[in-house]
């Protein structure tokens, strides 16, 4: 080996690497904002005033921040649903469907126990129903992958459509709430089943669930044998096979656990924010979670930050529509720009060996 490495230079090198990454992040986000400004300008609106509005009426406005956190909660859980299979080298694009199926199962369970059920009973049954349904939904894709060698990125996407139409089938049919005056929604969940708010804020306890889930996954990845093995499978399946690891079981468990987390996201969104299923229920939660996971480079704790960031952009859309007269969808441009810029500029390049 070449000489003993001295501590100080190595630390400095690591520090430079880290500040370099941070600088690239900053540059990527700035670039995205600049391009977005050009877009705003093209709509005859002053970009500086728009960015100022975003700052004063969204990011520094307590009620809006609460909204961001509420929105971020299912995003974070849906992102974790991508993080866990991603660790094993699997691509779960099925968060969307798994979220819906989880919510549908939770709503069904809520109807089954009845609106007057004790909160403890209602919550337990609904959570169980949601995670089992989400896990099973992902399990279909896992089974197809392991038995028929069908790529999970394809099957999970296709199952999203099945899940959506399953929900529509139910709320347009037997679950339709007669009291909703013709609208296609399921009956609202019982008062005991609704997630309580944190103190006097408008934020429900689902956010605690998301943070705990991220911490548990971080611990599982870094401190458990299962997490270590999952990393090996994701890094090099051939090495895992040769090391005698139960590759099939690991892949299955990762994808099913992803489904469980997405199901939980569906439950949290139903019991904390929407209270009933409607045709647009959970729209894009799975896909935005997918983006948040990629932004966080599939790291469980970073997901909390990226989920909050995409939630902030989503909330900004409403403000822009009201204050600047821009279409609400225009923030999707910003979201897309940020994602492309960040992924493109902060990718981990292979060191020159």
């Amino acid at each position, binding site marked *: *080996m*070449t000489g003993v490495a001295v501590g100080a230079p190595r630390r400095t090198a690591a520090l430079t690497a880290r500040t370099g990454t941070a600088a690239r992040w900053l540059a990527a986000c700035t670039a995205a904002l600049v391009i977005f400004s050009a877009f705003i300008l093209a709509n005859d609106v002053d970009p500086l005033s728009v960015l100022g509005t975003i700052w004063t009426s969204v990011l520094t406005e307590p009620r809006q921040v609460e909204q961001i956190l509420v929105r971020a909660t299912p995003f974070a859980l849906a992102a974790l649903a991508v993080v866990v299979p991603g660790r094993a080298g699997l691509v779960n694009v099925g968060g969307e469907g798994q979220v819906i199926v989880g919510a549908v199962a939770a709503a069904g369970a809520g109807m089954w126990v009845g609106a007057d059920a004790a909160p403890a009973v209602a919550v337990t049954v609904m959570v169980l129903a949601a995670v089992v349904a989400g896990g099973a939904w992902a399990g279909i894709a896992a089974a197809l992958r392991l038995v028929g060698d069908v790529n999970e990125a394809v099957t999970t996407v296709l199952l999203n459509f099945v899940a959506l139409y399953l929900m529509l089938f139910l709320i347009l049919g037997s679950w339709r709430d007669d009291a909703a005056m013709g609208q296609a929604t399921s009956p609202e969940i019982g008062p005991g089943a609704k997630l309580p708010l944190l103190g006097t804020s408008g934020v429900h306890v689902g956010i605690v669930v998301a943070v705990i889930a991220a911490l548990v996954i971080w611990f599982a990845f870094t*401190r*458990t*044998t*299962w997490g*270590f093995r999952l*990393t*090996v499978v994701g*890094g*090099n399946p*051939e*090495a*895992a*096979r*040769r*090391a*005698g*690891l139960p590759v099939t079981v690991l892949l299955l468990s990762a994808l099913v656990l992803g489904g469980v987390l997405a199901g939980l996201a569906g439950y949290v969104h139903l019991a904390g924010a929407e209270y009933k299923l409607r045709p647009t229920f959970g729209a894009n939660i799975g896909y935005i979670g997918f983006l948040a996971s990629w932004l966080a480079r599939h790291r469980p704790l970073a997901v909390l930050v990226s989920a909050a960031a995409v939630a902030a952009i989503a909330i900004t859309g409403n403000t822009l529509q009201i204050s600047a007269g821009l279409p609400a969808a225009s923030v999707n441009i910003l979201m897309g720009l940020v994602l492309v810029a960040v992924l493109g500029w902060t990718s981990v390049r292979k*060191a*020159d*060996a």
Partner: protein
Amino acid sequence: MTAPSHRRPPSRIGAPPALLDVVGFTKSFGDVHANTDVDLSVQRGEVHALAGENGAGKSTLLKMIFGVYEPDAGRMFVDGQPVTPGNPAHARALGIGMVFQDLRLVPALTVAENVALSLRTGFRLRMDGLVRRIEEASRSYGLDVDPRAQVRTLSIGERQRVEILKTLMAGARLVILDEPTSVLAPQEVQSLFEVVERLKAEGLGVVIVTHKLNEVRAIADRMTILRRGEVVLNAVAPADYTDGALIEAMVGRAVAPLPRQRRPVDPAGRTLLALSDVRTDGDRGYEALKGIDLDVRAGELVGIAGVAGSGQRELFEVVLGLRPLTSGHVEVRDVDGVPARPRVAAAIPEDPVADSVVPGLSVLQHMVLDGREVPRKGVGVDWAEVGRRTAEADAKVGLDIAAPRRTLSGLSGGNIQRVVLTRELSTFSPVVVAAYPSRGLDIANARRTQEVLLEQRAAGAAVLMVSEDLEELISMADRIVVMHDGHVAGVVAAADADRMALGRLMLGGAA
């Protein structure tokens, strides 16, 4: 060791300038000095051998000559004219051609189409004319190549000739061959050397990278030896030096030959590895093993020889239970004779980077990926215990592995190989399967690896070893099994093995 004279002028007064002159090439990667003040001079009509251990800086030197790397310092002259090739295309235009170790042909295309890829062909591709030119060129250089043949139907030796042809068609006057013989059977080496002689006779310069001294003596006019990025022997005639002196120049110290005296195999010893009529399919669907019968006894080392792609990889994988059989039977037994799962076997894979390395994980984390139970602490891995075992294994095997915290994917091939060898060979395994165990290692570590494998044999393990180095097989094995096209072409006792006879078997002929 005498230091080379550094500030040599590019050419002696009066003499014609050399074809290639490299003066004082220096290159560092971070704090690794890959090349320090390296000189290399190649005349027209000269075969110049470049030797040195892995990591001695040969590849760096060649890449600077070929314009892949830019030297930190130093100058380069072609025909006495100063040049600085900025990229491989520029180097090619200067008449420098490179044949890489891993051949870079497109298997689905024909020879002519592959040649066309490396030429400027304009908008229209005129294949007929190209085919004629290839036929002329292959005749004039004695390269026996059919331009219309699909590359995937060609043997490795033939593909190498296509690569050489490519460089010649692109106008090369200096041909650099990077370890060309490592993938060839002895007969193919001989025909390669005939081609090299022909190039030499045509007035071209040839640089051949090799560390096999018999090859250096057979083909090279002069040789340059690098060690740790510096020239230790500069353009000397190999005949002036003994093998011992040349090895010492490469390694920096004398390396004792392997002990020839070994306890003979006990004919009544237990068979620990038994294959009967084993058939299996390769990755592309064709049958890769066509009925293999093979036994290895306790305390026996059986070597597998064969041209690359003769079924060695598939044999290795069926022994380890990694590839399903289409028929036949593989049995791996523990020392007490009871049938055991293949997990009992220690395995050195053919391609450690592809088969063993998990990007981002450390040396320490790789040490537990040997198929045995991982030491646990609660729900996690007991990394402190793994660290203790790693230190113990390193001390025992003596291959001096990299620091436990280093990321494996950041290590060189040789360092990765040492980690895998240390992990697999630090404890006794009844069955040891090793594919190319000393590949990528320097001479000293390769020798130590051979010793460790022989120690496993002496301890009563059944060792099956695949190697492309016939010398290694002859010096280590009790029996050599030669494979050809998925069959056992012959079994030879190592004591009376003859290189040329083994080569004939490897190529599918009779012994």
